[in-house]
């Protein structure tokens, strides 16, 4: 069977892990400040700019890491290593989100 250079298994695994890391460390690639439509890189903060949105930047950071991994890690290797166990990674990432947001439910 002809295999693609892109590894879906590596993409999904690395995205989920990277997402939780940047979320836990509060390290988005950028933030959007919707009140005036401003953008800032990384952890930079603006004063008097209203609330910030980090989600786009978290997605971008995790996406870059996942794309790099997906084209570097051979698909056969990733699938052999993670096959039929990979679902644990997104489930673990979702559980980590619940843990990181627990203050809202206390």
């Amino acid at each position, binding site marked *: 069977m002809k295999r693609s250079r892109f590894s879906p298994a590596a993409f999904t695994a690395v995205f989920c892990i990277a997402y939780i890391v940047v979320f836990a460390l509060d390290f988005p690639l950028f933030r959007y400040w919707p009140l005036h439509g401003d953008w800032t890189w990384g952890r930079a903060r603006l004063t008097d700019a209203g609330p910030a949105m980090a989600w786009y930047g978290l997605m971008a950071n995790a996406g870059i890491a996942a794309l790099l991994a997906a084209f570097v890690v051979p698909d056969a290797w990733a699938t052999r290593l993670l096959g039929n166990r990979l679902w644990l990674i*997104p489930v673990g990432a979702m559980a980590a989100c619940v843990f990181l947001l627990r203050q809202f439910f206390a």
Partner: protein
Amino acid sequence: MTIFLLILHGLVGVALLGALTHQSVSLLRGRSARGVAFLDRYAGARDRTFTTAIVALFVAEVTLGAIIYPAYRLGVRIPFEEMSLGWAIGAFELKEHFAGLGLAVLPYYAYTWKAEMAETLRGDRLAITLVLAFVAWWDFLVGHVLNNIRGLE
């Protein structure tokens, strides 16, 4: 415009959770049911044909959500904070993070549904499909409940 996109977001969400629920039930039944009972007919759909539609709907759903997200951040979340509705803010935060993780799962989801992977990745196919179904249901229900508390303007 925001209201139009919100309604579209909701309609795409309905289609997505319908397709994912159909596919999940079919997987869980584990056989090609061809009986006359409703559940047999429901589970007897050709589940593989749903995959492309689910990927397209999921991408469309998250994209629409990302477009209207600033309106939520300014017009809904701030009032939630003023009303001390921490659980509502937390539920929406989970909705956004689950959606992002669901988007990340899509390439592998599509991969596990390829005909040549049917046997080797059977376990992942079932679990990943159920994860996506959970995300679709969670995001839809949270969005619906929060919109009932305070809708976008």
